[in-house]
């Protein structure tokens, strides 16, 4: 098991003091009037690994989508990889987006598409249109796709159709696509919600260690608190659209978690069986070994 705290790696290409992500007074109100984010403030340095936890409806998905430039905030600033994405022209924004990898909770894979094509689609931003079309006839980088899937124990499904996959396998294909994309920033929205406890633990571990090795900035929202505590050095607690706390893992104590999940009464863990606070061992020791 990786130690809870690891040395932060700052990639050489980032200027000292630059932020990978910066949100200031971020607010988001959906069309129906629902307020998802309330003047949220968050800063992430390049190469950091951050876990976002919080009860359902806290705004985790909305936050990640705004950070991924998939959604535009109603108020406030957001800076991604040093630039305000909405001040850019369409072409520049497209190039920015190819440096950001968003892992969906349930990846929208076309049912009849094969896994190899779905994974290779991660680099469409870098390939020209000609290569992209040619790859539809014959996959351009079978080895690359296979390598990405191997880290997720899915290499044997390389030529399978996406609609023949289970929910957990589809989720992992979504992760493989982002791994293949080689972005500088990975935003993961509940990436292991459909996986069984052992596999979930392994996958989050693989994601975190990949981020560590390559100096990727990783921000992941997780439903299972124990996974967050086990693999991430920094925890951000979200509640009702704002940051409740933002601390290194060792400083996240029982009381804080209790307050965060007060409405749900119990802490969610990977085994899908809500666990009483007293049973949860802290800090950072996972329940599945």
């Amino acid at each position, binding site marked *: 098991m990786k130690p809870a705290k690891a040395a932060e790696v700052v990639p050489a290409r980032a200027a000292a003091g630059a932020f990978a992500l910066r949100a200031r007074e971020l607010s988001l109100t959906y069309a129906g009037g629902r307020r998802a984010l309330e003047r949220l403030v968050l800063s992430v340095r390049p190469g950091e690994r951050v876990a976002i936890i919080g009860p359902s409806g806290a705004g985790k998905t909305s936050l990640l989508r705004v950070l991924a430039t998939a959604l535009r905030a109603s108020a406030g600033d957001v800076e991604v990889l040093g630039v305000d994405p909405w001040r850019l022209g369409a072409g520049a924004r497209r190039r920015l987006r190819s440096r950001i990898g968003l892992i969906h909770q349930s990846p929208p894979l076309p049912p009849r598409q094969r896994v190899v094509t779905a994974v290779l689609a991660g680099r469409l931003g870098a390939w020209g249109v000609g290569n992209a079309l040619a790859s539809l006839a014959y*996959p351009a980088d079978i080895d690359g796709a296979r390598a990405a899937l191997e880290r997720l124990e899915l290499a044997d499904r390389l*030529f399978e159709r996406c609609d023949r996959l289970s929910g957990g396998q589809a989720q992992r294909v979504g992760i493989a696509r982002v791994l293949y994309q080689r972005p500088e920033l990975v935003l993961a929205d509940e990436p292991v919600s459909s996986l069984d406890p052992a596999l979930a633990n392994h996958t989050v571990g693989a994601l975190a260690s990949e981020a560590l090795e390559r100096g990727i900035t990783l921000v992941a929202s997780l439903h299972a608190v124990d996974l967050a505590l086990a693999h991430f050095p920094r925890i951000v607690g979200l509640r009702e659209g704002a940051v409740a706390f933002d601390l290194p893992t060792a400083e996240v104590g029982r009381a804080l978690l209790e307050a965060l999940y007060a409405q749900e009464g119990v802490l969610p863990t990977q085994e899908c069986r809500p666990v009483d606070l007293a049973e949860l061992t802290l800090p950072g020791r996972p329940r599945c070994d």
Partner: protein
Amino acid sequence: MRLARDPAALPRLALAALAVAALLPALRLAEFDPAALLDPANARPMAKFLAQFVPPEVSVEFLALVGRATLETLAIATLGTAAAFAIGFPLSLVASASLSLSALGPARDAPLRRALRYPARLALIVLRAIPELVWALLFVRAVGLGPSAGVLALAIAYGGMLGKVYAEIYESAAERPARALMEAGAGRLQAFAYGVLPAAAPELVSYTIYRWECAVRASVIMGFVGAGGLGQQLELSLRMLNGAEAATILAVFMLLVLLADAASALARRMLA
């Protein structure tokens, strides 16, 4: 070998080769020759024809002629559909009554019914498979140019269609009431009249109205081969290369189809 690494590569290549192999003879059989469109012998009269579309022919006499032809087309469609009903309804009874009700118990004259059922269904299939235009041409040759050929052609072609669909509606819509009546002791015909018909009536009516709408369109097309109405006028104008007249008739045709569409939708809503 690179091809072998993607399991789908070889089948795809084979399929592509097959498609290309089929495409070339097809192009030759269809005498595919886009250059022919640019051949001045064709292009010039065609361009002249198209240029006459604006302005369309709106003289009073022509409009009156078109008006009469439109009424004729509507009359052909209405009479044709009615005749189709007269043919299709009995056929549907024979074809279906033995099916949905035979499950309830053998009739007294079961062998006769069985003997009738298959020819009836065969007749329906043959009637449906021959395009109505072929019927139109046959009747034009048999009874001469004019609306009668159109009415008869619709009667035969749509009779088969109505018969089959009616039979399907009986089977899907009304098994249970008929069964209940039979079990209460009613005869087969009574069970049909009081059980099947009331339950199936709305769908029967709806489909018949929809067929009328198709008949309007078909009447114009059949008119093209001489069965009267708007279509026959269009054919005349095209043969005379009179673009202005053709434009007017086409516009009226599209208006007619729209109106028939609306009327049919309205009627079906009112009866729903």
